[in-house]
């Protein structure tokens, strides 16, 4: 079991951003995390990756407890935060080498070249990150998430703000990565879910309202349009 979450909660004073959710994610499958803005998607991802401390509950990533074995757990996770924060004053290669060093990788230079090729950054590899367009920054974000070849990838809105060509490229890349990793992506785009996700979790006001495979959820609601199901569950 790559990710297992039990009764995970995050409260801010009285507000329950995430309210006792439980789910599991399996290797080789891509899990789509859906929900309206403010539903708790990012908060959940931030707890899994160790940025936020859960108020209560347990979560394990590759059998490592995210609180008591946080450093070990973090080594197994590749994370792309929302809005792709990057050190924009650094050069692409310099930044990726830095990330590689934080994971204490060997042969960093060759690994950096590998991921640059993998995410299609080759034409821009000698530029400063601040010079890159949004699409290429997104690729840098993905490259830093996969540089240590993690078992688990957590991507928070990896395709927001991309043009249709870039969308297709990035989706294909995520799909490729999902073949042997556990991938969780959050998104608002229903076509994207249809295109790449195997499983779906819909979250609303901090609670899980649906957790099923893509086919399963369509069958359960006798609906072929994911958009309709989403509206029904969260509106």
């Amino acid at each position, binding site marked *: 079991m790559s990710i297992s979450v039990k009764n995970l909660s995050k409260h801010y004073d009285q507000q329950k951003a995430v309210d006792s959710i439980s789910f599991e994610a399996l290797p080789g499958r891509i899990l789509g995390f859906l929900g309206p803005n403010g539903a708790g998607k990012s908060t959940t991802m931030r707890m899994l990756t160790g940025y936020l401390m859960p108020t209560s509950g347990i979560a394990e990533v590759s059998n490592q407890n995210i609180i008591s074995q946080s450093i070990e757990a973090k080594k197994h*996770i590749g994370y792309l*935060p929302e809005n792709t*924060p*990057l050190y924009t004053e650094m050069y692409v290669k310099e930044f990726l080498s830095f990330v590689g060093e*934080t994971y204490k990788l060997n042969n960093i230079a060759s690994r950096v070249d590998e991921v640059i090729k993998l995410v299609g950054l080759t034409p821009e590899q000698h530029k400063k990150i601040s010079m890159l367009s949004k699409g290429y920054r997104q690729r840098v974000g993905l490259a830093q998430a996969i540089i240590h070849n993690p078992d688990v990838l957590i991507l928070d809105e990896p395709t927001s703000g991309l043009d249709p060509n870039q969308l297709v490229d990035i989706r294909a890349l995520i799909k490729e990565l999902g073949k042997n990793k556990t991938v969780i992506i959050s998104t608002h785009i229903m076509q994207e879910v249809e295109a790449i996700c195997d499983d779906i979790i819909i979250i609303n006001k901090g609670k899980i309202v649906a957790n099923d495979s893509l086919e399963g959820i369509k069958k359960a609601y006798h609906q072929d349009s994911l958009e309709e199901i989403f509206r029904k569950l969260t509106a």
Partner: protein
Amino acid sequence: MYAVFKRELFSFLSSMVAYITIGIFLLISGLLLWFFPDTSILDYGYAEMGGFFSLAPYLFMFLIPAITMRSFAEERREGTYELLITKPITVSQIIVAKFLASLVLVFFSLIPTFVYCYSISKLGFPEGNIDSGAVIGSYIGLFFLGAAFTAMGIFASALTKNQVIAFVICAALCAFAFLGFDYTSQLPFLQNFQNSILSFGINQHYASISRGVLDTRDLIYFITLTVLFLVFTKVTIGGKR
């Protein structure tokens, strides 16, 4: 931890931060020490470094906040802190790495001033007649003072996402730690505690080391002060999760 330290130091050196702060430090101390007649060593007539060492803490009060203000404030504003903390590094390692990178920069700003020391010793009569014990002691004192100010700056930067606020808080903290206790001790109703209040201030310990007497109590004072503010930083950053 080394990766973060290296990145921080390179970002200082590849941006203008390092050159401008060190440059201004050298410009002001050079002008005051050699050029303006009121404070110039040449007009003073005694070949000693005392002028520089009494001036440097005041320059550090403005330069160190300028170096440290970005460390956490900028990362948290840009969101890169999320990137950093989700790597397999602990909060303590990040804090120490940032502290050391800033401290190295402070150290870099001191290196060129060895030229002053050399020039003054050449100006002495007979040549080379300089109180080397006091000079070495003062440099050690200044370095420890810089370390304490840097820790305060890192702490101030952790309090806010706004770099200007971080700068002002740090400058105020440094000024208070350096001078505040001296002034407080002069209040009439605190007369009885004057000595103990004075001993909380940086000034007394700095002056004591500057005499060339390395007292372990002074060193312990500086190390405690530095570690204390790094611990405060950890509590502040940790509390925001």
